[in-house]
């Protein structure tokens, strides 16, 4: 079997490497930390090493390697709460506690000592490309949510128009569209205004009823 098509799509790994990722290495300068530093430089990353971690993470950083210390109570840094770049944890052992801790702070990959050069490139590419995929999905979800909300608004506005003007659905939409064009606004904006106006109107018209209704319970007391 041949796999030319799949392979010919281009190499994501080469593409990521050619961008020379900027990496912060928040690890002590022990043998494992130095192995990490050397291999990251070998594969073309621009690396800065700090221990303890910096207080602030600069915007241009693409990836963080973060040592998870076994005896620390809870890993907490301010930058963890400010949408940090993807994180790969580095720890000297694995057990459920440290895995849960890594999940809690949202790491994209875990390295366990002893650190060797092999395996680092795959961890880095996975973290960066999964983060990239994740961001793309988040953008898509936000877009879909707002699209769906707008859709509901237009539907509601159409129903109001159909009821008030005794017209069908297509005519109602056409009316909204024309308004939007004349006022140079989005259909959703016109729909939102209309719903707002309709609510005001019904409040005003039913004002007395509401007041009388409110009196009922007081009289009951």
């Amino acid at each position, binding site marked *: 079997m041949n796999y030319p098509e799949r*392979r010919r*799509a*281009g190499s994501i790994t*080469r593409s990521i490497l*050619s961008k020379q990722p900027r990496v912060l290495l928040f690890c002590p300068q022990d043998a494992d930390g130095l192995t990490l530093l050397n*291999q990251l430089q070998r594969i073309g990353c621009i690396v800065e090493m700090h221990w303890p971690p910096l207080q602030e993470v600069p915007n241009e950083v693409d990836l963080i390697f973060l040592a998870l210390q076994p005896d620390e109570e809870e890993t907490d840094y301010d930058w963890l709460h400010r949408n940090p770049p993807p994180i790969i944890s580095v720890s000297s052992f694995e057990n459920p506690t440290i895995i849960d801790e890594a999940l809690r702070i949202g790491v994209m990959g875990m390295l366990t000592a002893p650190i060797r050069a*092999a395996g680092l*490139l795959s961890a880095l590419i996975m973290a960066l490309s999964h983060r990239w995929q994740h961001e793309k999905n988040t953008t898509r979800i936000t877009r879909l949510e707002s699209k769906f909300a707008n859709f509901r608004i237009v539907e509601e506005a159409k129903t109001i128009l159909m009821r008030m003007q005794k017209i069908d659905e297509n005519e109602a939409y056409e009316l909204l569209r024309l308004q939007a064009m004349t006022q140079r606004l989005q259909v959703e904006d016109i729909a939102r205004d209309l719903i707002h106006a309709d609510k005001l109107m019904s409040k005003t018209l039913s004002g007395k009823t509401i007041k009388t209704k409110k009196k009922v319970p007081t009289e009951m007391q």
Partner: protein
Amino acid sequence: MKNTDPIRVGLLFSKTGVTSNQESSQLYGALFAIDEINGLGGVQGRELVPVYYDPQSDTARYKLALERLILEDNINVIFGGYTSSSRKVMLPVIEKYNKLLFYPQQYEGFEFSENIIYTGAAPNQNIVQLAKFMTSRFGARVYMVGSRYVYPYETNRTMQSLISAAPDNSIVGERYVSMHASEEAVDEVFADIKKKNPDFIFCTLIGNTVPYLYEAFYKAGLDPRTMPIASLNTSEAEIGIMGADVACGHYTSSPYFQSIDSPLNRSTLDRFFNSRHGERAIPNMNWEASYFGMHLLAKAYRHAGSDNPQDIRQCILGSDIEAPQGRVRIDSSNHHASLYPRIGQANSSGQFTIIEDLGKRIDPDPYMVRHDWSSDDELALIETAE
């Protein structure tokens, strides 16, 4: 350690199987160097003794034989491997026992191990030069044909990225065949190549299948001046099998060719051909990578004052030596060698006429991090790869 103890070196090169011709070049390059070292009194009076197993061109046997060398024979330093698959299976073993492996063969790059010394070319020392040469002379419509394993896959991706700098570049075909493929299977691929009529053919076939492609080209009566075959591994050893007429006119990029016109290369070849190994292998890029690697090792033993593989490694890193291709050096940050890129065209006497020679040593860049991929649209690449 007694000062007179022999130094035992493991050798894992196939004498049988589909890549035995190429691996024989490596084996006899190493054995020839060992004879030379011992002939001059060994390493400070200590004899170098080879311990050899035949992995039979079988990836699984490399691992088994390496474990045997380390665990049963207590060997610290091993020379071995031709295919990248063989190196990939040996890497975790050599790291696990913290020994030292010399890998004397050009390969696709994108690798580093603390425990490996790579004496063949990295991609920035052969394919970069080849892509530039072929596209500027013949065009960038390339047909890629290779053996079905990791080296051709990765190398073709690098070639694809490199030709994307050229106008009108395209991959008009890409086919892989087994290293055990028959002549008919390669003929069938060649029929497709002929139909697609590329500007040049990029051949990453390995071992016994290499001659089949050149023979198919020759039988078809095509002209290497209009549609040449370009390779990183077709060497004097392969030409020895297919014959000078068949290879004539095609191109290979390599730091070493027998035809390098230097006093040291000529005298080394003379000594080899007159040695007890002279009839057993054809000197080529692998022979030389193995040969100078062994001399580097002897030099390291002289300086280390210990048999500990970590001490030996420290002495090899950053060290240099006069090799047949020129003065080579092992890069201490990535363990690959600084070498001299050259492009040769096979001639009618079965040798290569060197038609491009920078005359300059290039430092190894196995991950191609210093390469300027200026023409690549990286984001577009990610988008299309979804």
